């Protein structure tokens, strides 16, 4: 149905197989049909010369908020999938804190249908751990998995009850899905607006101590060990969490973890001037945390990068810091922020970064994609990792603009994004950077 596409002369990086060479990639029938130098083009194939660009598996984001149903003015499945494609993502996992909560098979099925209808990046639903995310009764994991859920989480709210977390981890084993937890001890974090530290003291804002996260990381690790379940720790933000996960992995406990581009690059200093675009939960921490998170990512203690894309209407963030909601959009800046800070900053190589944004997250959540192996889904992204570009939130495909990176000059941008061998995003000439002099 779709024309085959031959991507010629790109730097082909497939972290799932350790491949990094100049080659061609042929996509046909929605699959990776061939990878190698000097491929012939089949009849009717569209040939694209991608010399100077990087051809890699499409990125996979296991943590986004798409606001549909309930807050479609902020984001929909379709607009989120478009933003994802613009950011080089071919698959994203949508958290269930919608309104109503995605806590049953009908709600999960709705997300799947909206995703298919949009026909852009794939959107996989994550079901709620508890009915209504109330932290009381288990939601119907089995039915939700049957309808297409790939994980369960009460993200946005921590699973406060140790008993609920334990039963969730045990019960999820039947379906071999991860339980993704937002680690936050609620009584320590209550009323907090930013990291507890010197900046919060100066600004007169209530802090969220690092211990609020680490206590729950430790609890979840112990419960994963006790139950044999797979716990996935969302958006890690502290150096203490990195150490807890390192020790757990050494003991062979089934724990995986993610970190956001902003926690890898920004500190609580970004909250100065009461900038509500620096208000997120978990909060931006200290320079030593940023360093430890980057090192943890390089060493594989932290498995993957996830954006925690959290759209909010502009006027919600146009408020006093205490009164503004947590969260920032991230899909369209994730790769650029990560490439600029981590690859140009010497923390990761490009193949390592691509692994942490495609192959590994796909593996952690058991998703197709994240590989250029023959016969795999043709979810591919062509990246430009040479030309600088400037973040202009007005150009976002997302419906929301709440980013702390507006105006930043970055390197690393999706030039073409393909899902199932079909182009779902192509960088517009208007957003191309000016030619270097």
């Amino acid at each position, binding site marked *: 149905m779709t024309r085959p596409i031959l991507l010629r002369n790109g730097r082909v990086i497939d972290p799932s197989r350790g491949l990094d060479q100049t080659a061609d990639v042929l996509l046909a029938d929605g699959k990776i049909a061939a990878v190698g130098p000097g491929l012939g083009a089949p009849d009717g194939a569209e040939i694209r010369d991608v010399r100077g660009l990087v051809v890699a598996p499409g990125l996979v984001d296991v943590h986004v908020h798409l606001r549909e149903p309930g807050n479609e003015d902020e984001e929909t499945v379709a607009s989120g999938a478009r933003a994802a494609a613009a950011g080089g993502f071919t698959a994203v996992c949508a958290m269930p804190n919608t309104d109503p909560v995605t806590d049953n098979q009908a709600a999960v099925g709705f997300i799947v249908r909206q995703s298919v209808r949009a026909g852009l990046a794939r959107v996989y639903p994550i079901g709620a751990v508890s009915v209504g995310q109330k932290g009381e009764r288990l939601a119907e994991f089995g039915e939700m998995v049957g309808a297409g859920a790939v994980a369960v989480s009460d993200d946005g709210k921590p699973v406060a009850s140790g008993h609920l977390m334990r039963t969730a981890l045990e019960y999820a084993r039947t379906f071999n899905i991860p339980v993704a937890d937002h680690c936050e001890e609620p009584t320590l974090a209550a009323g907090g607006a930013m990291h*507890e*530290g*010197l900046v*919060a*003291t*100066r*600004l*007169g*804002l*209530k*802090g969220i*101590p690092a211990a609020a996260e680490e206590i729950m990381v430790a609890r979840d690790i112990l419960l994963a060990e006790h139950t044999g379940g797979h716990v996935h720790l969302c958006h890690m933000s502290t150096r203490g969490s990195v150490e807890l996960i390192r020790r757990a992995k050494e003991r062979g406990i089934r724990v995986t973890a993610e970190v956001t581009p902003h926690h890898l690059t920004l500190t609580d200093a970004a909250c100065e*001037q*009461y900038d509500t675009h620096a208000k997120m939960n978990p909060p931006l921490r200290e320079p030593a945390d940023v360093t430890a998170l980057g090192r943890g990512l390089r060493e594989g203690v932290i498995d993957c990068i996830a954006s925690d894309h959290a759209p909010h209407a502009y*006027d919600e963030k*146009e*408020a*006093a*810091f*205490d*009164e503004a909601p947590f969260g920032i959009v991230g899909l369209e800046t994730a790769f650029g922020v990560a490439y600029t800070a981590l690859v140009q900053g010497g923390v990761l190589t490009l193949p390592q970064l691509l692994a942490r944004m495609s192959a590994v997250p796909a593996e952690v959540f058991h998703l197709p994609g994240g590989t250029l192996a023959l016969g795999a889904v043709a979810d591919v992204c062509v990246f430009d990792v040479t030309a600088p570009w400037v973040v202009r939130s007005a150009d976002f495909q997302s419906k929301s603009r709440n980013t702390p990176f507006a105006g930043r000059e970055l390197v690393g941008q999706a030039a073409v994004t393909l899902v199932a061998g079909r182009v779902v995003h192509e960088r517009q000439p208007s957003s191309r950077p000016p030619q270097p002099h």
Partner: protein
Amino acid sequence: MTSALGKDLVGLEYLTADQIRLILDTAEPFKEVSERPIKKVPALRGKTIVNLFFEASTRTRISFEFAEKRLSADTVNVAASGSSVSKGETLVDTAKNLEAMRIDMVVIRHGASGAARFLGERIRSNVINAGDGKHEHPTQGLLDMLTIRDKLGTIDGVKVCLVGDILHSRVARSNLWGLSKLGAQVAVCGPRTLLPRGIEDLGVTVFARIEEAIEWADVLNVLRLQLERMERGFIPSLREYYRVFGVTVERLAKVQRPLVIMHPGPMNRGVEIDSRVADGPHSMILDQVTNGVAVRMAVLYLLAGGRPELADAAKGAGGE
């Protein structure tokens, strides 16, 4: 119009030592205005000032209002209850509506830290912070400094200890910035549960015991213990607080030299401060209140573009 203080007064952290000295010096001639039979000078005649109080306040609101009226400004008071704010209007909408009525200044008290800055960045009028959450209460800091300078002749080198709930106190933060900029040594003393994290990194000495603080200090600025804090579990009981941290005659008697005692009010007698201390000979608590009007007159005058060297003349031109 850019005044010697900039457009807004958000906090003492953002002022230079010279700007703080300028305010204190400008307050001096304004003190006398309040001592006249006819307490009015024309310095701000024709200026419109809105006192926008989202939180309850008696002392600060009345003090600002007197300062404004004694400078001949036209003033309007807006309290959160009974206004459009209680109908869900946002802060920025309230401010923009006020500005659409062509006002010159807004004095704002708000429960959210950063609210005054937020407002100042969005409206053209001058904004004066009359207390924003746990952040700053700059005019309180200034009047405390003026009171210390009156009493001790200088601020440089004076040892000032803030006692009590530092964590939730905007007064503490304004004192800390202002006093350190003018060369005072600043310490804090209170239960660890009520001291903010990282306070030592701001160059502040921390005393665990009130006895040590009294031994060290020239001035005690005793902060109000907000009673709701006890319910949130920061301290076990008011009785115990008084027993461990109360500023009492007995504790003060242990040192030979007299300490200057200050309190920003409203006081909880018998909780953070012994009545005999509050009413005693070294208490400057009512002087603070008197100075509050003069300091606020100075701030209003300077922000309105008044030239400091003319403050004396400005007041002389009116009155009788």
